[in-house]
């Protein structure tokens, strides 16, 4: 593992580029594999909660090839575009939504050594880049030239503006405790006590905002199928639609990873169980977060947009601000 670290920090040459490619391409494939199976897992978990079996035909009893078949279907589908759509933006929108979702993955530390970019401002980078995707969504909503899509796009913007602020504010307390924005260092400080115990309020707010950020129930307003049909991607089909889907699930991967890193202590084992390798710990905590996402999706109804904004500005923001003061006081007194 040491040499990987060496490669990441060495000066750019053809060889290091090749090695870099050799490491990152499998990683990207791994993420795609995760997305494939996250969709399957979501359908399975929701199926089991709802007294169904979920996919169980394509690819054996557990439907292991269901998503593969679905994605393949999307790939070979005719690429339709509404006649009056804004052509350039219509093509650009899925790209804008999709690229940042992979860009944020670069800062997540999976184990002590397996980090692709150990940025000093990792946390800030993550939050900043992930905000770009919303531009893709609103672009898609505008470019489709569809009233439902436009409403979806507008809702996405309104939602993002309301939620990014408490999302960031909820992390300030944690950053105060950690004294750093570097994700690896944040994990190292959680060796004994994960931040979920020190920052419970921050965790709850961050989790709620993460759900909103991911456009998942109860905050899936931009694509509320019972109100505005499919929202911003109503006119998309084939591979462009797959891009939106993919971006959504890659974000789920990234956000679950971030929660694991920030609040659950990343690769740090529970004390006494250190013989289990760090990557397994990361995977376990990560799966737990993903499961909770799915569980919430299967349970809760959807909020209305004005309620959502009211909730964000009048409830979450004051609490997260209070949390900052509380954290500062605690930090001053005990650390």
């Amino acid at each position, binding site marked *: 593992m040491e040499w990987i670290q060496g490669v990441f920090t060495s000066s750019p040459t053809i060889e290091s580029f090749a090695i870099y490619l050799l490491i990152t391409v499998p990683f990207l494939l791994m993420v795609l594999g995760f997305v494939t199976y996250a969709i399957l897992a979501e359908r399975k978990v*929701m199926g089991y*909660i*709802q*007294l*169904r079996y979920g996919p169980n035909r394509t690819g054996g009893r557990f439907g292991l090839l269901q998503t593969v078949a679905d994605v393949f279907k999307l790939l070979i589908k005719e690429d339709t575009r509404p006649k009056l759509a804004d052509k350039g933006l219509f093509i650009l929108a899925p790209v804008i939504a999709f690229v940042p979702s992979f860009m944020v993955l670069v800062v997540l530390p999976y184990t002590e050594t397996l980090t692709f970019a150990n940025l000093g401002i990792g946390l800030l980078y993550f939050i900043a880049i992930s905000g770009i995707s919303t531009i893709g969504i609103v672009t898609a909503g505008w470019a489709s030239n569809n*009233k*439902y899509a436009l*409403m979806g796009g*507008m809702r996405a913007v309104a939602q993002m503006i309301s939620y990014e602020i408490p999302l960031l504010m909820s992390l300030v307390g944690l950053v105060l405790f950690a004294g750093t924005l570097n994700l690896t260092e944040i994990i190292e400080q959680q060796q004994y006590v994960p931040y979920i115990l020190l920052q419970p309020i921050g965790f709850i707010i961050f989790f709620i905002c993460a759900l909103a950020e991911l456009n998942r*129930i*109860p905050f*899936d*307003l931009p694509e*509320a*199928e*019972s*109100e*505005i*049909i499919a929202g911003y991607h109503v006119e998309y089909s084939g591979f462009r639609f797959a891009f939106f889907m993919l971006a959504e699930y890659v974000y789920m991967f990234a956000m679950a990873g971030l929660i694991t890193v920030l609040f659950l202590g990343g690769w740090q084992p529970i004390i006494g169980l250190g013989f289990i390798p760090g990557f397994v710990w990361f995977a376990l905590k990560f799966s737990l977060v993903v499961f909770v996402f799915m569980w919430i*999706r*299967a*349970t*809760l*109804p*959807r*909020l*209305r*947009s*004005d*309620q959502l904004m009211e909730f964000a500005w009048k409830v979450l923001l004051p609490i997260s601000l209070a949390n900052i003061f509380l954290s500062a006081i605690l930090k001053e007194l005990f650390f």
Partner: protein
Amino acid sequence: MIRTEEMLLNVGPQHPSTHGVFRLILKIDGEIIKEATPVIGYLHRGTEKIAEDLQYTQIIPYTDRMDYLSAMTNNYVLCHAVETMIELEVPERAEYLRVLAMELGRIASHLVWYGTYLLDIGATSPFLYAFRDREHIINLLNELSGGRLTFNYMRIGGVKWDAPEGWIEKVKNFVPYMREQIEGYHELVTGNEIFKERAKGIGTYTKEDAIAHSLSGANLRCTGVNYDIRKVEPYSIYDRFDFQVVTREEGDAWARYECRMQEMEESLKIVEQAVEQFPESGPVLGKVPRIIRPPKGEAYVRIESPRGEIGCYIASDGKKEPYRLKFRRPSFYNLQILPKLLKGENMANLVAILGGVDIVLGEVDG
């Protein structure tokens, strides 16, 4: 200065939340609805006109297809109307079977409403839980009548089949099971703060509005009007059962939700009592003439369907076909208040209001 304009939005007939082929033309300003115009008729089959060429018995399967979620009440209203015209006595056992079937159908219908309403609001699981329990009811009714949705069970003067062996026992066991499940629904949904936020104070109308728009069923009772035809004008054998008419005062979507949830429990009470009083034996079909020719004249009967007051008007000229047949279809009347309710509401409230009114398009369009 930003120039804004109103936008015309066409909701339906293929919109997931219009519960069928219902179309709404909305004039919206951002997400606020300025004007709503419902467009109906996509499912019009001309039941009433077809019926003029049919013998009375032949009309029964057509009534199955009006309010297809509670076909038993529709069967009943036609049979009841004809029985009133020819003054036919219905055997007691048949009456009990009818009441059992109708009340089970009412629960099934409310379960569909509950599931789809929550689905509109965005929660997916309650829908499947409701359909699990509805499946039990449908299996019971299937055993009784031989149909899962279009029962075609009642006949003029009685019912088609006697209860199969062990059926009454199954219904008896179903009652406590269903009570337990309703507890579960309350646990999952009634206490849910998000759902409360979405439903409370939404689509409110007053008692006067409700009466002026001739609403009926839970849509009327949610405003505090104590009006249930099973109590006001008891038909069949409803005067033998002890049950409450559920009312609420608020007149909003939440009140309608509570009304319907409690109505299910009241229906269970009726089912329980009917099972207890169920006669040991007896005929299930009265002495019906081979060809039914009601005397010249007219009759109007009304009963309480899960959606409200369903009425049947028959004008006979002494032939074996009706001269004119008219159904008062509650969904159609309940829908009339929709444009008024939607005015000034948020787009997201549209589904909460439309779902709360509980329409069945087969009934609206006739």
